[in-house]
């Protein structure tokens, strides 16, 4: 997933952009004759994104949007490292990302960027303890951090046992598995751990790649999953959608209200509901460890990045039209069908208000 990884988007033009440059010469009257077959001004939207996380939903949306409006959106995927650079340099018109841009990156753009939340993602803790059967394990943030710090190295550790009364934990070594590639999944997960564990914050911090104190690195969700599946006593983290579609066991995690919450579309959306968004928010809010009794604590927004003052106003209008469409209940339902947690209604209204202004 990618919280950071998602990527970047360019609106149209640029890739077709050279084409765009030629087009006026080719005759404005037939400007919709672009290879994309787009019927509006011949402009296609080119979205560049990276990882598996938002991949499916954007593909689905673009397809549905093309059927509904005739505007075809082309997309590519690159990492957010290159994506942010291209967005900053103006070689792409808009982007999609799992991780918000930093203040420094935004000031490099003169502040001309708006994060538009699209759906929510979550990271789940998965493990391989066949003796547990279907009973989900329970973790709290501090314990989870200590497991990933290597301070808790046995499954029958007293702290784990205290969190899981009635569960007979085996005396096995804990094998920690983490992502080896830079990823938004790691970003969300370490963001959560840094919030709940001062030691994690000072020793490791949060980023798409960090210095893992212990464990093995698996490449991608599938690398982590295979490693966990194959090692008795392993623990790892993957994105929720991946865990659901691969039927992995995952743990309930304690939120700040003291509830052990099972990750699900509802509890992830609840995390966003709990986020306190002021009317002038820039939407770059972290919803990990959010308040709210039902909120799953390892959740995050993903965003489209757009320029409030677009270089090309026609393109800007097209992007806006797509975002409005995307926020409709129908489009958000498509997200839920694919196991993406839809935005809570207040957030949608806030975004709509912001777009209108």
């Amino acid at each position, binding site marked *: 997933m*990618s919280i*950071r*990884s998602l990527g970047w988007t360019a609106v149209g033009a640029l890739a077709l952009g050279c084409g765009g440059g030629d087009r006026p010469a080719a005759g404005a009257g037939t400007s919709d004759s672009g290879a994309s077959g787009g019927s509006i001004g011949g402009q296609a939207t080119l979205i560049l994104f*990276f990882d598996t996380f938002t991949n499916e939903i954007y593909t689905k949306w673009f397809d549905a949007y093309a059927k509904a409006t005739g505007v075809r959106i082309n997309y590519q995927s*690159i*990492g*957010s*490292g*290159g994506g*942010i650079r291209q967005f900053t340099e103006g070689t792409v018109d808009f982007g999609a990302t799992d991780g918000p841009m*930093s203040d420094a*990156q935004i000031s490099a753009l003169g502040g001309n960027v708006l994060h538009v939340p699209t759906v929510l993602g979550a990271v789940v803790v998965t493990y391989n303890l066949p003796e547990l059967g279907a009973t989900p394990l329970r973790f709290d943030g501090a314990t989870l951090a200590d497991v990933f710090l290597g301070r808790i190295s046995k499954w029958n550790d007293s702290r784990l046992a205290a969190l899981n009364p009635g569960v007979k934990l085996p005396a096995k*070594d804990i*094998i920690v598995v983490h992502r*080896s*590639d*830079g*990823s938004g999944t790691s970003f969300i997960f370490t963001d959560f751990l840094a919030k709940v564990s001062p030691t994690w914050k000072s020793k*490791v*911090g*949060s*980023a*798409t*790649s*960090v*210095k*893992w104190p212990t*464990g*093995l*690195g*698996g*490449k991608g969700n599938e*690398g982590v999953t*295979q*490693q966990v599946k*194959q*090692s008795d006593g392993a623990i790892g983290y993957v994105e929720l959608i991946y865990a659901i579609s691969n039927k992995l066991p995952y743990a309930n995690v304690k939120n700040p209200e003291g509830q052990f919450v099972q990750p699900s579309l509802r509890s992830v959306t609840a995390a966003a509901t709990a986020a306190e968004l002021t009317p002038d928010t820039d939407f770059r809010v972290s919803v990990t460890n959010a308040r709210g009794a039902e909120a799953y604590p390892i959740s995050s927004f993903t965003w489209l990045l757009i320029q409030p003052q677009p270089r090309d106003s026609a393109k800007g209008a097209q992007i806006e039209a797509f975002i409005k469409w995307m926020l409709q209940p129908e489009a958000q339902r498509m997200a839920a069908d694919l196991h993406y947690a839809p935005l809570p209604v207040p957030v949608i209204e806030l975004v709509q208000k912001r777009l209108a202004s």
Partner: protein
Amino acid sequence: MTTTLASESVTQPPAPEPPSLELASYGDRVFRWILTLGAVSIPVLLGFLVYELWVGARLAIAKFGLEFVTTSTWDPVAEQFGAFPLIFGTLVSSVVALVIAVPLSLGVAIYLTEFAPKSVRQPVAFLISLLAAIPSVVYGLWGIFVLIPILRTGAFPFLRDAFGFLPLFQGPIYGPSMLSAGIILAIMVMPYIMSVSREVLLAVPDTQREAALALGATRWEAVITAVLPYARSGVIGAVILGLGRALGETMAVTMLIGNRHEIAASLFAPGYTMAAAIANEFSEAVGDMHLSALAYVAFLLFVVTVLVNAAARLLIWRVARGSGVGSKAL
């Protein structure tokens, strides 16, 4: 080295040509210039690549200097970077690969050229060459799903029981490890070493074999005393080719090596390689220093490759002294 080779081959016409021909044949001159351009483009491209890496790495070079090569911290959050475990992992996994692949592929090459019935030779050689055409991500997936379970439950415990007194085979067995990566690399470089060695052995004149046999040598002794020494420089060249491939291999390695920035004596422990680190982190690296450190790693990988190849050529020259099959090609 490359530069001189390239420019020599370009600027040395085979023989002085009569001027009339030069003038007459416009097409020849165009053709020659096109070829010159092609040949010159290689060193230019290489130089440009090195320059770009250098520029990209400048930030990290200024901050870490040569300590980058000897330190082991890799912390993107604190922006502290050291590549020693990566260099170590790259070299060790390649050495493991060669230790496994060289005897195996040389054995196959000898069998195919000296012992195998004619009907077997071509099909087997063809099949082995096919291994080279498999994409490395497929090797990686195969490694995760097939090889690692076999190694973890079968081969590794056996090695630990039999050779556990060596530090190489101690410690916990996870599956992904330096040894797993070395084994997959061995499988990947085998076709190269095998194919080239086979060609080299085929090029050994029959008189060598006949002379040895005439002196009363067995087939085996003929191979050892007459064929292999004659072919050694070419065989070393084949090994170097495989080594080059092993040093730079990325995808399959990162899927099997465990990706841990650490140096361990045990081959069962996870490790990391330079190419794997670049592939894993580059696309998501947003910090300037992080990017620069990765470029520095790429630069070092280039340096290591050049050094290893230079050492290998020296070895060939010393061993072969310009005689024997294949030495001229190298």
